[in-house]
């Protein structure tokens, strides 16, 4: 077992309001783990707390065996983690290349190579490299958001609803890219509303409801579980 991320009884929220309570989850390298759960369950809050964007009320977060609780995002980035937020995950007034330059802000060498790699991974972006990011379509935006987060060669990637608001074809494309990235050895923890589709790409899954982990199993087992299927996957499908 090679846990790159582990939260232990993590409790966090906004101001002094507790939103997520006593969360213990883990992630191994090369693994894709999906968190599903209803709207407002605290999924985004969990990722923000892990990434140093919210105060930790209780518990601990370990990244590569070291506690990162209380560290700010730029320190966590320097340790090898990346985060793609649910919304506003690109810089619309910057060009595509500039977005990637900001993603590689802490990089001191081989910037051009990494940029070329990203343009190979997402050829659509290469064609528009000098355009403002605000000109991009939904799928291209999501691609840029992923590429920005990969500029520092992270070992862990947190993704908050990477397929949200995308067409089925684009969703397929993004999930394929996520698999490619994981195959390179990157551990991926993602939140998804398209639960069934996401779980099919994943190794394991957590169900988060009311700020607590309600269920945890392999992705296959969750997909096969009639109870979870009815409660969470079915609900998602109806929407």
């Amino acid at each position, binding site marked *: 077992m090679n846990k790159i991320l582990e939260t232990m009884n993590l409790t966090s929220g906004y101001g002094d309001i507790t939103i997520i309570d006593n969360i213990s989850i883990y992630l191994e390298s090369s693994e894709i783990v999906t968190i599903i759960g209803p709207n407002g369950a605290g999924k985004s809050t969990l990722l923000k707390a892990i990434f140093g964007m919210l105060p930790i009320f209780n518990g601990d977060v370990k990244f590569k065996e070291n506690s990162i609780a209380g560290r700010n995002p730029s320190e966590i980035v320097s340790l090898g983690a990346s985060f793609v937020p649910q919304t506003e995950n690109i810089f619309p*007034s*910057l060009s595509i290349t500039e977005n990637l330059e900001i993603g590689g802000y802490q990089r001191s060498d081989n910037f051009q190579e990494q940029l070329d790699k990203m343009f190979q991974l997402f050829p659509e972006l290469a064609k528009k490299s000098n355009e403002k990011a605000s000109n991009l379509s939904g799928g291209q935006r999501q691609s840029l958001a992923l590429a920005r987060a990969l500029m520092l060669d992270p070992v862990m990637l947190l993704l908050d609803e990477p397929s949200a608001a995308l067409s089925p074809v684009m969703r397929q494309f993004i999930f394929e890219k996520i698999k490619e990235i994981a195959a390179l050895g990157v551990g991926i923890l993602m939140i998804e509303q398209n639960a069934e589709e996401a779980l099919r790409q994943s190794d394991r899954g957590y169900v988060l409801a009311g700020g607590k982990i309600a269920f945890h199993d392999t992705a296959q087992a969750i997909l096969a579980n009639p109870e979870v299927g009815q409660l969470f996957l079915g609900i998602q499908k109806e929407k």
Partner: protein
Amino acid sequence: MEEILQLVVFGIVIGSIIGLGSMGLTLSYGITKFANFAHGDIMSLAMYIAYFIVVDLGLMGPTVFSLSFGWGMFLAIAVTIILLAIFSIAIDKLIYKKLRRDKSNIVTMAIASLGVGIIIRAVVTMFWGPFARNFVPGIHEAVPITGNILIKPDQIFIIALTIVVTIVMYYLLYHTKLGKAMRATADNPDLAAVSGININNILAYTWAITGALTAVAGIMLGIQAQVYINLGFNLLLPMFAAVILGGIGNPWGALIGGFVVAISSEVSTAWIATGYKPAVPFVILIIMLIVRPRGIFGSNI
């Protein structure tokens, strides 16, 4: 026609001063989200620091080119840029930062910065008294551009310096890592932090650059008009008008806004009494707020 052209020339000179001042104001707002009402008074402070160097310390030296001042003024500009950069960072760390961290409302922040402005005015008055002074006393000859349209060499200097500073700012914001990080922070501070940018460093650099711009604008104002403590504060409203006109947070918009405000104020005196001139920026501000509150050029840097 010549009268109007003369007023336009004059407006370009004043517009350079208001434009550079507004650039600093809008940049610090765009990136730190703090509307600094002490901005005008810091411009006045710049004049007095320069006055201290060239007059009180006697470092002006003989006049150069056809300007009214000597090399000492260039030294004064350089020193004031450094001092105000440090001063601006210090004020932010001592006062504004705490207010931002406590998520104080905008009125609290406005009053706090007004307070800083009042303190600056009081301290300057304590040392230099309430009377207007000049870097160099006497009348400076204007030279003709064409026909009867005149400009003073000092005014050519002001326009040239504005062009230089604008080019430097453009290079900084679009071709340096720091500038790109500043634009990213203005665009989306949370994502900038998540990308590994240390936001506190960016804020400090932003205040330093704002301080430097304020130093240049303030000294230009002292050269063009007089060294007088209320001049900076009196420009605060025209500067806010320019900032809003250009789209809050957009430095190029603010620069152009500065020219629009200044040229229309000056040209208005061809038809209305000079006493009403200060009302022109007000009118522009109110019309803009009603018609196009996001400015002509939008808020992006």
